């Protein structure tokens, strides 16, 4: 295995040095036997073969979801006394007060794990979940923290996790993109750079399936152009390209470009059946909340169901983005509606994956870019209480594959200001996430900008407690 990896590394270096980025030759000489997206063996055995990453954009509060802090009720409205570091952002300075959680918590599942009582559906799934309370981000700035969580590089430009995973494992279905992103109607802060292929070849770019309109940009021709019309043009294109190919018999790249048009039209044909939920039984739709009178539930439910269908169809990595968690004010209503919107869809997803057996081989991750503070500045009197950003503590859970079931790993301090047990930085989480997918961050490297690059940037440590 390692010899093979070394060889491919050397080949890549050679290609880099000879100016042929992997991409330009991948379709011809280098991987003639196996395309860049062909399914590949993992570095080590792992149950999970694919991943659904539920990204809660905006910074969900750990204190108001899965990490109850009764102490805050006691301290409510008293001044937050903790010393701030000299590297504090303007947002976190000034006079601040503790804010209690407006939510009731309940013990859920057989194990009695405590979660916000406004997750009635999710409560039924907690025995499958591993809650992690020890993760810390490094920035309280949305785009930087999002880039960090999604690409390992706070300043953007690097490949997304899904790109790394597809680069490592290829895909089970080459007629679909290997890495699919299901964003909200609006793109998150930092935009498409959150799922960019960075310096990896374009095959590994995340394909955003848009929540409205054609799922893939330009997947369909302008309205009024029929498949027949298109096919005729495609045939002429094929004939002209064939004549041209005869004139340049030594020019291998031409073949790849000809093939890419055919592949595009296979994708065009296959995609609608994957994104079409009409064939799902009513009970499944109901399970997720598709058709729910609350449009938020309906929209997220569709994306969660789509995620399962994607994974089922062989897509390697699906990222579902659910925004709106940036509740600086009115945490009860702002977070409350988010919680309601996501509760049924994510519980439905877990239930569905479990009953179809897919949970065994699908890792599900739920995380935001950072957590929220136990305190707040004085904003509009006590009715407007919300929470600011907090990089030192954040909510995260895992389920499926080799993730432990029904466990709480790590802990935050008594007010939820900072993680204090099993504390790890984002890069360690990245190492762990890859590990759970059978990939070794230290081996999953790509030669770019003069060095071997990796998701964790400079290497990280496996969080053993998150592996069953």
């Amino acid at each position, binding site marked *: 295995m390692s010899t093979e990896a070394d060889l491919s590394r050397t080949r890549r270096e050679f290609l*880099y*040095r*000879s*100016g042929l980025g992997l*991409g330009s030759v991948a379709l011809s000489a280098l991987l003639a036997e196996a395309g860049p997206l062909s399914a590949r063996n993992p570095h080590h055995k792992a149950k999970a073969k694919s991943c659904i990453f539920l990204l809660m954009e*905006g910074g969900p509060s750990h204190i108001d979801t899965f990490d109850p802090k009764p102490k805050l009720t006691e301290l409510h409205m008293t001044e937050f006394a903790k010393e701030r570091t000299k*590297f504090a*952002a*303007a947002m976190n300075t000034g006079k601040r007060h503790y804010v209690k959680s407006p939510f009731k918590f309940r013990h859920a599942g057989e194990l009695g794990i405590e979660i916000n009582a406004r997750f009635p559906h999710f409560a039924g799934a907690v025995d499958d979940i591993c809650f992690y309370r020890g993760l810390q981000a490094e*920035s*309280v700035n*949305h785009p930087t923290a999002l880039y960090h969580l999604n690409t390992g590089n706070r*300043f953007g430009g690097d490949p997304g996790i899904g790109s790394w995973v597809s680069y490592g494992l290829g895909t089970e279905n080459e007629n679909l993109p290997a890495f699919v992103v299901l964003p*909200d*109607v*609006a*793109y998150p*802060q*930092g*935009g498409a750079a959150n799922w960019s292929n960075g310096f990896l*070849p*374009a095959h590994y770019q995340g394909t955003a399936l848009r929540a409205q*309109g*054609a799922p893939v*940009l*330009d997947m*369909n*021709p*302008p*309205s*009024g152009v*029929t498949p027949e*019309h298109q096919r*005729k*043009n495609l045939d*002429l*294109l094929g004939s*002209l*390209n064939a*004549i*041209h190919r005869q004139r*340049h018999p030594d*020019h291998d*790249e*031409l073949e790849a*470009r000809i093939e*890419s*048009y055919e592949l*595009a039209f296979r994708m065009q044909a296959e995609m609608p059946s994957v994104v079409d939920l009409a064939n799902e039984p009513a009970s499944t739709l109901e399970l997720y909340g598709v058709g729910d009178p609350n*449009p*938020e539930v309906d929209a997220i439910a569709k994306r969660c169901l789509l995620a399962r269908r994607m994974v089922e169809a062989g897509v390697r990595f699906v990222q579902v983005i659910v*925004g709106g968690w940036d*509740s600086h004010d*009115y945490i009860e209503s702002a977070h409350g*509606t988010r919680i309601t*919107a996501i509760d049924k869809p994510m519980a439905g997803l877990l239930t569905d994956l479990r009953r179809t057996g897919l949970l065994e081989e699908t890792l599900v991750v739920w995380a935001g870019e950072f957590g929220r503070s136990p305190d707040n500045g004085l904003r509009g009197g006590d009715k407007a209480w919300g929470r600011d950003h907090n990089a030192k503590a954040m909510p995260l859970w895992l389920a499926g594959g080799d993730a432990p079931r029904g466990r709480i790993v790590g802990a935050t301090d008594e007010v939820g200001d900072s993680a204090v047990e099993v504390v790890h930085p984002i890069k360690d989480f990245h190492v762990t996430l890859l590990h759970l997918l059978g990939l070794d961050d230290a081996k999953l490297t790509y030669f770019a*900008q*003069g*060095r071997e690059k990796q998701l964790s940037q*400079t290497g990280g440590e496996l969080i053993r407690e998150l592996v069953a």
Partner: protein
Amino acid sequence: MVHGWRIKLALNVWCGASALCAATPAEDLFRETIQPTLKQHCLGCHGEGELFGKLDLRSREGLVKGGSRGPAIVPGDASASLLYRALEHSGELKMPPAGPLPDEAVAAVRDWIDGGAAFAERPEKASLDWGAFKEEDLWAFRAVKKTEAPGGIDSLLRRKLAEAEINPAPRADRRTLIRRATIDLTGLPPTPEQVEAFGTDPASDKAAFGRVVDRLLDSPRYGERWGRHWLDVTRYADTAGFSNDYERPNAWRYRDYVIRSFNNDKPYDRFVLEQVAGDELFPDDPEAILATGFLRMGPWEHTGMSVTAVTRQQWLDDVTHATATAFLGLTLGCAKCHDHKFDPIPTKDYYRVQSAFATTAFARRPLAFLPAEDTSGFAEGKKRVEGLIAQLEQKRGRYAEISRRYLMEKFGVSRFEDVPEVNRKQDAGLTDEQMWARRIVNKHLSHHAESIKRYRPLAFSVTSGLVEDWNDVGPGGAGSYMKKPDYEQVEMHVLVGGSLESPGERVAPGVLSAVERYSGLQAPEFAETTAGRRATLAEWIVDPLNPLTARVMANRVWQYHFGRGLASNANNLGKMGAKPTHPALLDWLASRFVEEGWSVKALHRIIMASEAYQRSSDPPDGAAERDPGNSLLSYFTPRRVEAEVLRDSMLAVAGELSLATGGPGTNPQISRDAAEQPRFTQGGLRPPYYEEGRREDRNRRSVYSFQQRSLIDPMIEVLNGASVDLSCERRDSTTVPTQAFALFNGELSYDLALAFANRLRNEAERVVDRAFELAYGRSPSEEERALAERHIEEMTAYHRDHPPAPRRQRKALVRALPSQLSGETFQFTEDLPPWEYEENLHASQVEPETRALADLALVLFNSNEFAYVY
């Protein structure tokens, strides 16, 4: 006193074990006493002037290694050190020969050696093991070797071809050659008339092609094409990136500066000086002020959620890396946290180079528009932005009115002025939905408030030391969030592990020690003043003896002609970059470049006159087996054209390309789904993407498209456009199916195909022939003509039976979004922009024959021949 030194020195020895160390008394001693002593009394013979006795006292390594008499020092033991004994005049060797040094100086040397002989301000002190580098990896740091090559490029390629027993391919035919040269130099295909004129030019191939090259170099299209290459390297964008992605309203002046510089063949050394230190070196030259926009091209944002020290450091790292990458072809970023693992660049050098930027502040300077900057469209452009602002102000007014009424009612007063001031809250009486909508309106307005500054005579630039009035850390009140860094007296420290929280040893501005060590170019003296640091750095970069600069640029120019550099990683001439296939040729080019006064156009002429450039793209016998990568250049390697070339060529061939030059970026037609995509920013939404109303404004060359970091034209992006975050050394040409979606399904392709068809019907009798001539620069073969004509016939019949769908109407966008206040979904309407939209020609406006011809045009745009240069 002496005793005190000993204690400090002992500490330093302990500390010296780690490469990066905060305590510096030993270094102080070295800097204040030892170094001046050595410089004044010793280096004349043992280092700078001569190397008598093969002894080099310039580095600690040199001292330890010693000369023909053995080591000069034994660190930690002065009495065993030859240097000390010689200075003491106690033994056989007495130095300096002119007479002994003062006792204090000799004692200082003794203590210094006893304390471990630390060097300060010299990278040699760092952990870097200079001996570990292999000569073959250091080629780029060695002085450029002047090669005599009367036969030019071809004589330097010949030997390896002969060794491989490959007879290079013959000269390409004239039609192929003019297409190659025209796309290379202008990014556009030649017109059929140009092809014809060259094809029938009775002059010799050499003379005729020389004239073609001259004509192309004189074309304003040349600067647009080659300026784009440079913008790839510098990551040009019109916005700042990250959350808000605010416009940098004056960045376009840098883009135009780059284009002008190429068109005017500005000597490259001057071009570099201006970009690194134009404000310091040529303060009275407005071009040089505009040039400094280079230093700020990376993405950068500071908000209330940012930490000043962090965003400041982020810029310092960015500019250090960007400068090294662009001009020196080195990946300096690797040395930020630890000594470079592959190249002889200690971390300390990284921070020394960074110190050159430590006193630099962002500035938005007043700078009158130049005669070369066409401001004729400004009044109109400004009016358009004002129109958008007025639209939004009106909306905002409606919310204000609701609040006023609510408050007046609440307080039972008939005049708003009677509402107590403390209660006049903007959100008063608004529903959650209205509150959130008002925020979006405000956010849009804050964006337009920036955008409208495009038309003001300001420069996106820098100053050395802060000029308050010009301070430019970002719109939206970002300035108030930012603690002002001290730009005047900046102490730079090595950041251990790259972390701001672990400042290590203090460093002074400097350059890469490896260059001095390996090439002999002496490192310049930097004054640790506020101004002048960048000037010193820039002058060192363009010193004709700098081994990197001319090589890097000559290699880039070669790369854009041949698809691959002689050293094929144009941004990395270090160990991990590819070794040059023809080092003597690269050096010959680099020295010719400097001899020609750093003229890039001269370099083009030299390269394009070569046989190598003019060869056919058919591989000769044996090439595939003995040189599969064509590194010997026995034939011309075909390559796919870049995204912008493809778009511009489609526009040109369709007769739709506008050749207007310069000015603020314009919004072309992009995928409508992408344009309508809502995008969150901090606390709101970015204003929608509004296409230009006039066709000619939409159909400008791609280099003038407004480059929004958060919304790159998806067609450009999918066709491997340049990253706006990382320097792009060379466009990738990976083929993926989504490219077919963009080109074969995209509305722009359909629209331009129709325009092309319409042009053909208006201009030509033999439409098929003309279509091939315009698209490919050649007539169709019999077979092709027959295929095309049959297709038109079939499709005409098809279109007769299938009347086109009506044009998609442009309408206001209704967005459904979750409120961040309540989490509930609410609707927000984005109005259509307040200007006329000049529609493209639509299928419903033309005959079935024209629609059928448009199908042929669409196929030509998508064909491989259109997408490749041979």
